């Protein structure tokens, strides 16, 4: 969100409203044009990171349609709007304005074509599914693990044997700082020393949309199978996430999962809840 831009837009609309109620009558058509422009400016400049232009075009098409429906909902207003347009086109006193509009619009179109052609072309962008649906089960070290029912075997120690649990946290810490922090970073923000060189960038575990909304078995799958285990909608060919089954034991993976939750303060999503 670019709050400053949005505030300016809202302030401009409010000022216009004030002017319209006090001094001049603005008909519905003009108001709709104002709204259309305001919404466009809000979408194009008020949102950060910027929306792709294709999304803006889509939204503006919906806005245009909605405004048309709004206008045609009241037949008096519709008739008055049609009358305004007709008057602008047929009445002599608008002749100069009409000719200006007729001349300027094609020029704007030509300008748009020019800028489109002179912009350097953009490489194909890949839309990626961040949390793809996991497979029903995986094979880890020759044993099948059912991801729908698998639980972290050391999780219950948190209540039954806190000292043993603390040892798993410590072991997870060791695993993390021997293996993960180069990319996921010291503070688990996905900003490790090598993060800038990989695309997609490493996951930020502090972000509430990553581990906070996932089950531990899901993390086990993503850690054990890494990029090669991803379905194609998640671009397995560019992810730098290693298949940690090649480096770590099952216990080490469960321990580092415990450490991720301990460090960030999040709770894993309970098993059995819909993903």
């Amino acid at each position: 969100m670019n709050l400053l831009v949005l505030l300016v837009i809202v302030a401009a609309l409010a000022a216009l409203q004030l002017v319209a109620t006090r001094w001049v009558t603005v008909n519905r058509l003009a108001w709709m044009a104002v709204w259309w422009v305001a919404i466009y400016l809000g979408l194009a400049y008020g949102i950060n990171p910027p929306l792709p232009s294709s999304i803006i075009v889509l939204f503006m098409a919906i806005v245009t349609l909605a405004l048309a429906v709004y206008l045609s909902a009241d037949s008096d207003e519709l008739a008055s709007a049609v009358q305004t347009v007709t008057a602008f086109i047929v009445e002599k006193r608008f002749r100069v304005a009409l000719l200006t509009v007729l001349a300027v619009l094609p020029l704007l179109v030509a300008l748009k074509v020019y800028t489109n052609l002179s912009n350097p072309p953009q490489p194909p962008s890949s839309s990626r599914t961040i949390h793809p649906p996991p497979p029903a089960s995986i094979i880890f070290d020759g044993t099948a693990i059912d991801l729908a029912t698998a639980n972290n075997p050391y999780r219950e120690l948190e209540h039954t044997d806190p000292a043993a649990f603390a040892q798993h946290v410590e072991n997870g810490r060791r695993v993390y700082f021997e293996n993960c922090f180069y990319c996921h970073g010291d503070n688990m923000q996905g900003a490790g020393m090598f993060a800038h060189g990989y695309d997609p960038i490493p996951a930020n575990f502090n972000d509430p949309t990553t581990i906070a909304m996932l089950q531990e078995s899901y993390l086990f799958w993503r850690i054990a199978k890494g990029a090669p285990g991803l379905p194609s909608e998640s671009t397995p060919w560019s992810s730098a996430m290693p298949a940690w089954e090649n480096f770590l034991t099952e216990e080490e993976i469960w321990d580092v999962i415990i450490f991720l939750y301990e460090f960030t303060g999040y709770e894993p999503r309970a098993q059995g809840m819909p993903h």
Partner: protein
Amino acid sequence: MKQYVLFIAALVLPLGALGQDLGTPEQLQSGAALYEAKCAHCHGAAGDANSVATAYLRPAPRDFTSGQYKFRTTGSGELPTTEDIKRSIRDGMPYTSMPLWKGILSESEMEDLAYYLKTFSGDFDGPYGNPEVITIPRAPTYDEGNLARGREVFEANQCADCHGENGRGNGPSALDLEDEWGYPIRPADMTKRWTFRASATREDIYRTFTTGLNGTPMPSYQQTIDEQDRWALVDYVWSLSEDEPNYGTVVTAVGTAGALDISQGAALFADAPRAYFPIVGQLIEPGRSFYPGVNGIAVQAIYNQNEIALLLSWHDMTAEVDGANHPGLVVPPFDPATADTAAGPFSDALALLWPAETPDGLERPYFMFGDAKNAMSIWFTDLATDSAAVLMGRGSASIAATGATLAHYASYEDGAWTVIMKGPRQFDSGLYMAEAAFTPVSFSVWDGLNQERGNKRGLAAWYHLYLLPMETQSAALPMAKWALIALLIELLLVGVVHWRHRRSAT
């Protein structure tokens, strides 16, 4: 009340036990908890850098028991101030594993931590615990008129011995440098200001000349270079680098009608735009590379009717042109750091990586060395040899020669490799690089000095090569076409309105 008394005491007493800035017990307690949670993983529970991470990190995490800090506003060999330690925590050390904690820890938490770090070294409550602060003046604006003098100062003080003739970190002494703890350390590459450890504002560069970097071979020049000359040297160092690496995502290849005579070297690429890409360690498969010798690569490309040539250049402290290298060499799962001076059996090498076939949609081979489903075509040159060849990769355990060779050119000069590889736009394996199309491309670099071979290497993500069309279509025709269409729609609308108006009037 106690703080109040301490404060008064600090004001009125000369330097001594009471004047030292060691924090309150509450601050130390808070600092200890923060240290345990955020710092001990790398710097060790006892602050002595004895941790699980140290073996994997170069530069190694700082040993706080020594009291040696790189960033200081105090004289060479002196202890830092609390504010100095805070700033190291706040801003981190770029291009090392020390992150910036700004935005994660509050100012008071960083202060608590700074006080706690002081407890690891007995020196802070000793007689030198509160050293005099050197005030760093505000930097004068950059003055090109100073460059000649700055270069003279650079030469007179033998900066090139470590940093190299053109500041690329490749001086004759660079190879033997060790830090206080005996770990190999590399001099800063002055052409990459963004990698400077203790920050890279003009004031910071001046401060580094003035205070030196404790624990490293970088000395203080406070006594030997006067203030004016230090600022001239700042201007000279400033002139060697861009502000930012400006990492790119696309190499734009420009077309030419003639033959691509790569024996001309870099001159052939004078008109091709340069794109710069980050290189990071390979951490995905066994033979992981935690401290790659190369951290960035510049790429330019040109093409003609049938061929494409790419120029790749990167900074490397020394050229390893003895020994051998190959992407398929097997590396043990953990390959510890060896001293940089060790004459290794591995040479420098470079690979350009392409999808073997034109990708169907977005799918492409795995970005390291391909996978079983999608093969990768690897243009590889071992810089100890005078040849380049096409390999086929189906995963890092399955890299095979195809028998095809490539025209290539390689030169090493003053700390920089310049390598050109030229091949057909139509690969035997199927890939075709069409004009006005994007082709995925990636890069791998091996620094033989760093024992890099096989999977132990610096690598890049997938980027794109774009062949800029040789004949750019004039915009006039499409502009006229669309303007005319717009005009016709307008006229049609006006006509319809007029017609309806007249009809309703009659």
